C-alpha cells in the first residue's frame, strides 16, 4: 500500500486516490511544425521507464485535487508531489 502525500491533506492511504494515467508531456506549442510521428508519440507513447515516472493521481475520496507525482516503478518510492495546476 502506498502513502501518497496530498499537498492539501498531507500523507494519506493510497486507497483514497485514483490513478489517472501518466502525466502528459507539455503539449507542442506550434501544431503546424509537429511531425505526424511527433503527434503520435505525444498522444500514445508516454515514457515506460524502469525507474521514476511522472503520473497523475486524483484525491477522489479526499479533497478531490488532481496531483502530479513522481513514483519509482520498481521501488514505489514517491518523490515530492504537487498540484496539477502548478
Amino acid at each position, binding site marked *: *500500500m502506498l502513502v501518497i502525500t496530498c499537498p492539501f491533506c498531507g500523507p494519506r492511504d493510497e486507497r483514497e486516490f*485514483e*490513478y489517472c494515467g*501518466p502525466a502528459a508531456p507539455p503539449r507542442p506549442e506550434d501544431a503546424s511544425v509537429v511531425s505526424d510521428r511527433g503527434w503520435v508519440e505525444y498522444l500514445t507513447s508516454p515514457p515506460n521507464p524502469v525507474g521514476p515516472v511522472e503520473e497523475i493521481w486524483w484525491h477522489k475520496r479526499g479533497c478531490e485535487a488532481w496531483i502530479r507525482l513522481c*513514483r519509482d*516503478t520498481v521501488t514505489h518510492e514517491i518523490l515530492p508531489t504537487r498540484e496539477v495546476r502548478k
Partner: protein
Amino acid sequence: MADAAVSRSRSQRYSAFSLLAGAFRQHRGWRPAWREPPLEQCYDIVIVGAGGHGLATAYYLARHHGSKRRIAVLERGWLGGGNVARNTVTIRSNYLRDESIPFYVKSVALYEGLTKELNFNLMHSRRGMIDVINTWPKLREIRRRRMVMDLHGATYRPISVDEIRRRIPLLTGGGPQSRLPILAGMLHPDAAVNRHDAVAWGYARAAGGLGVAIHQNTEVKSLLCDESGAVCGVETSRGRILAGKTALAVSGHTTSLTDTAGLRLPLRSFNLTAFVSEPVRPVLDCIVNCPDLGVYLSQSDKGEFVIGGAPDPGQSFRRDIRQNVFEDTVCALLELFPSFKRLKLLRQWGGHLDMAHDASPIMSPTERPGLYISAGWWGGYKAIPAGGMTFAHLLATGTPHPLMEKFTLDRFPHLDFIIESGTTAAV
C-alpha cells in the same frame, strides 16, 4: 547447426508405451527434452524471450517456414520462467472487436489440438466460463459482445441467475439483499484451462526437435544498430550476436529493449497478480469471472483455487501483490462465495505485462529494418498458439498474417485503434 531431420530422430516420443518402458528402466534412460547447443555468433533469426510467444514463434517458424533457417531463442532466465508460468491460464475468445475475435477463435482452436501436435500432455480442459454480471452497463456491453461474437463463430450465450446457482452451488452470495445483486450471466462454452509449464516445455521440445537453438541465461542488454539505423543483432550477457532479423517477444520488457535503439512505442508495463488457495475437493468445474466486482477464479486439477483480480494502479516493474489490490480481490471473492472465508491462501505472485495504448496487442515490423515486435499481450496466454503462428508468418514472409493485419504499429498514426480495454482485467 544440426540437421533438423537428425535432431528430430534423436528426440523421444512420449506415449503410454514409452512411459512403461521408462518404468522398466527405472526411469534412467530419459534424455533432456530440448537441446542446449553451443551459442553461435550469427543466426538468421534471433527471437528474444523464451516465454510462450517466443517459443511458439520459433516452433511455427521451423515447422511451417522451412528448416533451413538458423533460429535461436535467447532467454535471460530459464525457459518458461516468465509470465507463461505466472498467469491464471484462462483461455477464451470473448473479445469485443471484429479485428480481435477471429484471432482468438483461432488460438482457442489451436490449443485444442496442441497436445497431439506437440506430443506433450497440456492437460487441456475445456470447461467453459461463466461471466457473472451485477450492473446494467456491463450487461449491455456483454450483450453487444455476444452479437459481435456470433458473427465470428465464437459462442457466448445468456444464462439465468438460477442457472448460475445451479451450476455453481457454492456461489451463494450476490443475492437480492447484497450490495450488487447478480442480474444475469453469460456462458462461454469454448473457454478452457490447461497446464502453463507444459505449454512452454511442449513448444520448447518441439522447436528444439526441429533444430531451433534455445539459449537460457542469455540476457539481451541492447539492440545493435548499423550505420543505416537497421537492427543487425543484439548485445547479450554472453557477447554480441548478429541476426538477419531480431524478434522481440519479451512481454513487459519490450520498451526497455527498444529504448536502446531510440525507438518509442505506445506501450506501458503494469503488474498483474494472482494467488492460490489450499487444495480442496473438486467443487467448481468452470471458470467464474465477475467483472463488476473485479475477481475471477477457477479450480486447478490439484484442487487449489486460482484467483485473480485487477492490475496494480500505475506502471510497475514489480512482481509482488499490492496489499490493497489483494484485499479488494478477497472482498469481491467473499461477496460471491461467503463460505470461502474458511479457505486458507497459500501463495501469491505477480508479473509485468505491457499494454498498448488501445489495450490490443502489437505484432509489427518497426521503423528499424530488421526489428520485429510481438508485444502488448495483456491477456496473452490464450494467444500463444495463434500469436506464435502469426508472428512466425510475419518473420518468414515480411508481411503480417491476415489475422493480424490490423495489429501493426501503423494503426497508431492513423488512430485506427482497436480498443479492447474492459474485455481483459485491464484498467
